[in-house]
């Protein structure tokens, strides 16, 4: 298991796009320490902020995160990255496969554009978790994102595929969704605003927009399949499906093929 141990708080935002098990595999310790990770004109090399221990395995542990570590695990295709501490924006953005675990909090745009693999955040996530970055067509695109704590606003904004589980989430969860599944124990106002297709499964929610219409309570086979799929990820979320649910259809401002399942 290769390890990067934070020695001092980074003096500027760091870009970890190129720091992953696969990239470190062929490098000597000296080469890894000289990797440029800074983002300002001054620049920072990996060895200036982290002590580096490499063993060529496909697991990388970052001991001591920091909210200035951007793009940790971005474009990860294979292997495992574990972070003890916080990370910055775009955690696992564009990730294709593998596993990414953060013990602390993540900044905004976690898992944006991720097409595969599993991203788990033990703490809270910022705004637009599983959402789209500026000018991107889609947010989460096939990966699995699990946020044990609280996600900010716009959870799963424009997501197209995949699954998001969150403890609590802010306003506009699932806004402008194209497709996919979001389950949250509690969300703020206006869930699903502007959604085209997709499924939201909610414990409690704030104001429901007038462009969602109630379509009654249903007992669908799909819900049992969904419960089965969720049970492996989080029994707490699967339990949302154990009680009668009310189905809302919307957003009527768009093609209105989305659905929100909320406790009756």
């Amino acid at each position: 298991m290769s390890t990067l141990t934070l020695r001092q708080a980074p003096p500027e935002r760091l870009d970890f796009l190129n720091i992953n098990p696969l990239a470190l595999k062929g490098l000597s310790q000296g080469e890894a320490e000289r990797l440029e990770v800074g983002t300002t004109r001054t620049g920072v090399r990996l060895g200036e902020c982290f002590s580096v221990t490499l063993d060529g395995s496909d697991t990388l542990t970052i001991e001591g995160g920091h909210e200035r570590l951007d793009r940790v695990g971005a474009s990860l295709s294979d292997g495992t990255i574990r972070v003890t501490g916080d990370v910055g924006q775009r955690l696992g953005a564009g990730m294709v496969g593998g596993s990414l675990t953060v013990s602390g909090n993540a900044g905004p745009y976690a898992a944006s554009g991720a097409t595969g693999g599993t991203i788990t955040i033990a703490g809270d996530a910022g705004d637009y978790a599983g959402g789209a970055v500026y000018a991107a067509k889609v947010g989460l695109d096939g990966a699995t994102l699990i946020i044990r704590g609280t996600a900010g606003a716009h959870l799963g904004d424009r997501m197209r595929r995949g699954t998001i589980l969150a403890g609590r989430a802010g306003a506009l969860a699932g806004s402008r969704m194209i497709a996919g599944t979001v389950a949250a124990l509690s969300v703020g106002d206006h869930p699903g605003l502007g959604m085209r297709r997709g499924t939201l499964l909610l414990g409690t929610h704030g104001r429901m927009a007038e462009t969602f219409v109630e379509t009654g309570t249903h007992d669908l086979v799909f819900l049992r399949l969904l419960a089965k799929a969720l049970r492996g990820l989080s029994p707490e979320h699967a339990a949302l499906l154990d009680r009668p649910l009310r189905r809302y259809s919307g957003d009527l401002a768009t093609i209105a093929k989305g659905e929100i399942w909320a406790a009756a």
Partner: protein
Amino acid sequence: MAAWVKGGATDAGTAIEAAASLLAKARAPVIAGLSADVAAIRAAYDLAGRIGASVDTAGSAGTYAELGALSRVGALTSTPAEAVGRADAVLVVGAAPWQAPLMKRLIDTKPTRGRAAGSDRALLAVGANATAALAWPAAGGLTEAVGVLRAYARGHLAGDALPGQIAARLAAAQYGVLLYDPAELGEAGIEMLQGLAMELSETTRCFTLATGGVGQDRAVVPVSAWMTGQAPRSGFGRRVPEHDPWRFDAARQVAAGEADAVLWLASVPVARPDWLSAVPSVALVADGEAKAGEIVIAVGQPGRDHGGVLWNEPRAALTYWPASAPTDLPSAASILGALKERLISGQTASRSEPAC
């Protein structure tokens, strides 16, 4: 010419020297405001590229609400002159557009061109307590309200409730205009409003029109596009222009302690943000005063002290404004040029090759 360093009056040369040394020792300098004529905006991007600074504008909240929606769904837009000349129905979204000078022209006149020439102009309002033919207060917020109108326009909602009447009135118009303030409506709301305009344009003509731009943001967007290929919030720390609206948000950078020097460019007067006092700053401002920053250099206001190309709101274009009361105050572009020369000759940055 007036200049101040730490509150004490001095001459321009000393102030430029002090500004250069402040920017030279900064790790992550920011050039913010960019409320200036095109020459100064160009000089600001040139300086940012040379010293590896990042750039943000005075009105970026509204600008990015617009650009975010534009990048995803496009936009159907009109100009103030077209709206005044042709619109027989105007929907005012929110409270802010009622303050725009354009509103008086829309209220006082009737359409004079096109198919609607000679007919009355119907004023419709959503989200504001306004005097209009139909006014819907919309308790659920503007984005939801625009969504409801769009659902009626699509035929997904039906009935003669107030939003239904507003949607019907827009659908019956020859030339509808949806007036909004980008900072007030927000990105999600603007995207929904563009959707409404597109929905209505299936059967008639309907366009959106933004009011209330802050500073010279409307000039910065095209200048940054032709200088960097990107939208305004770009950074040059890694020698190539990187666009990241979250990372290069100047207010966020200052609050997070990432920015350690700010050059505030406001030769066209604009409100000074609160965060500016939390970081050492160089202010290039018209009508400068000692307390505008750590180092203040008074520059000419384009269109008043000297000529310059500025955003022309009524004509919706960049136009040249000659000096209305010429003075010998230096232009912001010339001060930025002098700063650039000083910083390049001092070889300040470790990554000192030009970024653009």
